[in-house]
């Protein structure tokens, strides 16, 4: 009996700190692109150092992150699919949404460029050439922000991609880029993950235009509405929002570089 109470006491002592820690942490669902570019490894320790709040990151595609937000399984979302985000807000699942930063999407593929997208005048034309040449194209296929952007471009090009040349991987950005590299396939990627991985891949950036509006990649932070899910740590999430949009956060975003180049840019304040 004494042994029992002693061991249960030990268990309690062991469990309590972890419960307390869980209480004060932020669960952040993000797109794989910010995680795969190692940006969060740079950003979050600074936040924790300043506020003492640890952040648990669940890196998924934007579609999946929004689904987690709907279920109340996370406190905040860092995502990049404006249309889906707006719907999420309209449905009342989010409380506030702030533009955080942006970069761009680019089309990468094998150096031999069998479809000749290198000299395409627009990204839609590049996609059209791939479809016409039936050159292997690997899609994220996971409902992520990058996947949504890719579908938007196909749509604008008036093409419904189908056939053995078009494959959907259903994986995060880093895994998918590695697959595309092995399959000698084209794929659409975000510039941050690309900057981080490009030297490890046998792929080349074949079409990139930072001024083409369809290729702009906007990231925003959404706070999950605690109303339907009372366990959502709203005040902690708000602390993160205030920090990342404040001077320290903005300075951090601007100072993150990969091989000496800035990869995320601050949104101009309206």
């Amino acid at each position, binding site marked *: 009996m004494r042994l029992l109470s002693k061991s249960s006491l030990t268990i309690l002592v062991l469990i309590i700190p972890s419960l307390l820690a869980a209480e004060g942490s932020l669960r952040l669902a993000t797109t794989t692109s910010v995680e795969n570019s190692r940006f969060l490894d740079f950003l979050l320790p600074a936040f924790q150092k300043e506020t003492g709040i640890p952040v648990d990151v669940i890196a*998924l*595609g934007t*579609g*999946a992150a*929004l*689904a*987690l937000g*709907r*279920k109340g399984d996370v406190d905040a979302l860092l995502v990049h699919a404006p249309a889906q985000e707006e719907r999420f807000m309209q449905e009342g699942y989010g409380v506030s949404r702030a533009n955080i930063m942006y970069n761009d999407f680019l089309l990468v593929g094998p150096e031999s460029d069998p479809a000749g997208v290198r000299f395409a005048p627009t990204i839609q034309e590049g996609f059209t050439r791939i479809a016409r040449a039936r050159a292997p194209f690997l899609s994220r*296929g*996971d*409902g992520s922000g990058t996947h949504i952007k890719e579908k938007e471009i196909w749509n604008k090009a008036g093409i419904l991609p189908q056939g053995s040349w078009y*494959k*959907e*991987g*259903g*994986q995060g950005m880093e895994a998918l880029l590695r*697959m595309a*590299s*092995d*399959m000698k396939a084209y794929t659409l990627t975000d510039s941050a993950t690309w900057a981080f991985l490009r030297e490890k891949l*046998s792929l080349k950036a074949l079409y990139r235009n930072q001024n083409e509006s369809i290729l702009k990649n906007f990231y925003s932070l959404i706070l999950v509405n605690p109303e339907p899910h009372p366990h959502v740590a709203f005040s902690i999430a708000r602390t993160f929002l205030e920090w990342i949009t404040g001077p320290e956060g903005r300075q951090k975003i601007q100072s993150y570089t990969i091989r000496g180049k800035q990869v995320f840019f601050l949104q101009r304040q309206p």
Partner: protein
Amino acid sequence: MMALITALELIVSGNRELFFTVGTSLAFSFFSTLFAGIFGLVIATIFTLGKFPLRRFIISLVTSLMAVPTVVVGLIVYSLISRSGPLGSLGWLFTPYAVVLGQSIFALPIVISYLWAGFSKLDTRFFETIQTIGCSFPYKCLLTWRESPAALVNALLSTFGRVLSEVGISMMLGGNLRWYTRTMTTAIALETTRGEYEYALALGILLLLFAMGINALTLRMVRQKVAA
């Protein structure tokens, strides 16, 4: 609860992608079990009838390979067939060939273990008899197989069940490509992370039905064979 109803609707309505994925899974598992079965049968029979140095040691080594996790098999085969690997020129990575290759390697020690266990249960008088009639080695093999139909059925069906439910190899070597290498297990992993719980649940229900069905079938057939 709503998710469960939607999942059942997906199954009943015969959702095309759902059943394509199920078919892919069954096809991969069938070929993997077939290849592993052929090689496994030969090896297990040699283990049973053959006499060679370090026999005990080799047998325990091979049967203990049953415990190798799928992700380790995936990793080894991946490094072999990736473009930078020694078999990279085959271009097999992220194709059905890669999945079947990986799953066959994974299944081989399992088949051997089941068969070896089954053959070991044969009466010692049987082995004495085939020694005394002095027939050729292939004929001895045939006699051994004919004596243990239950072991064969048990080995193949159990292995099929194990392969059908593995996810590591299919994910790493198949790449979870839609309409190509996406299996029930990789689809469940993907659809859950995508937040498509209903679809994942539908696949989960089917996978569970298959696993339990195979189990029941194994039990029944083994009982029948033993009775006969």
